[in-house]
């Protein structure tokens, strides 16, 4: 059986016959929906105006767009041509401008050279004026030199005669300053001792370390003339490495109400800090004459 025979047999296939009762049943069951305006009549629904003219409108829009683009490009082209012509005209004027620029550069370099020469000339003038000024001062220098030689000779003669020389003045001033600072240290020590006594039932401290809270710094326990020590912290005080001597440790003012008792002493300057807080400076001779030991206490008389 070939293909055409198969197709022929298939097309001639018998058709099943519906039962006679089917048609009346189908027709009886017809239930048509209520017609509405939302469903237009079947057949040839008229397309909208936009749908019908859509191809023409699209072509027109495309053509118009292309025309607009061409117009814009033509405008841009004309502008470019105009700019090109202006640039060509400017190019013709460029050579004279270049020549002018070269000459300007040369003139500018010459002007800079002239300015530099002017500055050099002003410097030379200033130096000349300075030389003249120095030359004017030369006789004065000679006079001062002569006077200096005279003073040196006089100083040398004074030294040979046993008088003070210039360097002794400085040493004396330094010693005096150290003595004043020593007095100041003793005043602070005396004040600290009195404060400590007020807080401890009028009894003076047994040592310097006991009144560390009353002293602002341990440096005051070093005499400025005492270069053998370096009291910079309380550890040095604890080890007893101080310049001053505490001569009235544990003194009770109620028992010994003598204000001339020496509280602290600087053995270098013979400065005395009494228990009343005053500080007295004595010479070596005065110290030997006026300071005595009474009842185990050093007293200034």
């Amino acid at each position, binding site marked *: *059986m070939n293909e055409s025979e198969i197709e022929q047999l298939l097309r001639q296939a018998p058709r099943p016959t519906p039962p006679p009762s089917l048609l009346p*049943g189908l027709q009886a069951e017809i239930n*048509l929906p209520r017609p509405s305006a939302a469903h237009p009549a079947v*057949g040839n629904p008229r397309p909208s105006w936009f749908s019908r003219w859509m191809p023409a409108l699209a072509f027109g829009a495309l053509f118009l767009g292309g025309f607009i683009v061409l117009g814009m490009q033509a405008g841009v082209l004309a502008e470019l041509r105009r700019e090109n012509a202006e640039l060509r005209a400017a190019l013709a004027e460029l050579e004279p401008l270049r020549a002018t620029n070269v000459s300007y550069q040369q003139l500018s370099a010459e002007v800079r050279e002239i300015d530099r020469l002017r500055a050099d000339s002003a410097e030379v003038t200033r130096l000349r004026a300075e030389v003249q000024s120095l030359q004017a001062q030369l006789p004065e220098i000679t006079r001062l030199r002569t006077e200096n030689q005279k003073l040196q000779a006089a100083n040398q003669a004074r030294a040979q005669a046993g008088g003070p020389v210039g360097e002794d003045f400085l040493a004396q001033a330094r010693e005096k300053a150290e003595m004043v600072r020593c007095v100041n240290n003793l005043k602070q020590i005396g004040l600290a001792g009195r404060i400590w006594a007020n807080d401890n039932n009028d009894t003076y401290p047994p040592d310097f370390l006991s009144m560390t809270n009353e002293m602002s710094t341990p440096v005051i326990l070093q005499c400025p003339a005492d270069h053998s020590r370096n009291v910079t912290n309380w550890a040095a005080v604890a080890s007893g490495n101080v310049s001053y001597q505490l001569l009235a440790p544990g003194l009770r003012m109620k028992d010994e109400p003598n204000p001339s008792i020496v509280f602290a002493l600087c053995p270098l300057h013979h400065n005395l800090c009494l228990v009343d807080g005053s500080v007295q400076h004595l010479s070596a001779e005065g110290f030997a004459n006026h300071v005595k030991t009474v009842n185990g206490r050093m007293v200034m008389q």
Partner: protein
Amino acid sequence: MNEPAEQLLARARAGDSAAAAGLVAQTYERVYAFLRRLSGHDSDAQDLTQKTFAKVWTSLGSYRSQASVSTWIHSIAYHVYVDWRRQSKPADAKADGWWENCPAAGPSPFEDAARRDAAARLYALVEGLPADARELVHLHYYQELTLQECAEVLDIAVSTVKYRLRSALDRLQSLAAEPRSHLIPSKL
């Protein structure tokens, strides 16, 4: 002279019951035959035909004039059949020998008998084809729809219709050449 189905449908959409009755009378035999061959039973075919036309009346608003009324109704019938097959899942999906119950026709008794025998074998082979190929043979050869109409009913491309028909014919030709004992799938 019969009124065109498109005009009957348009009148039915407008609420004309007479037009709807005319449309039923014009199309119900083809619909019934289509569903009878697919379902394999008279009672199922009647039920499916009734469901098909019930859906036609409720879907009148969805009809567009791009397809013919016949194609549209066949599409509805096909979908009704597919829904029925999915829901009822009949135990015996194979159709009976519907061709044996149809009246014979032919020029001579001898030729008629031989041709009738060959046709019966061929129709049985058709029922043994896969579902998509079988439904396509029904639509194109039995229901006499064009390839384009078949594609619209099954909602597939025309090229796919052509391919499936070609495959079905090749398959039928090869099966027809085999010994007779293997030719009737309903008896396998």
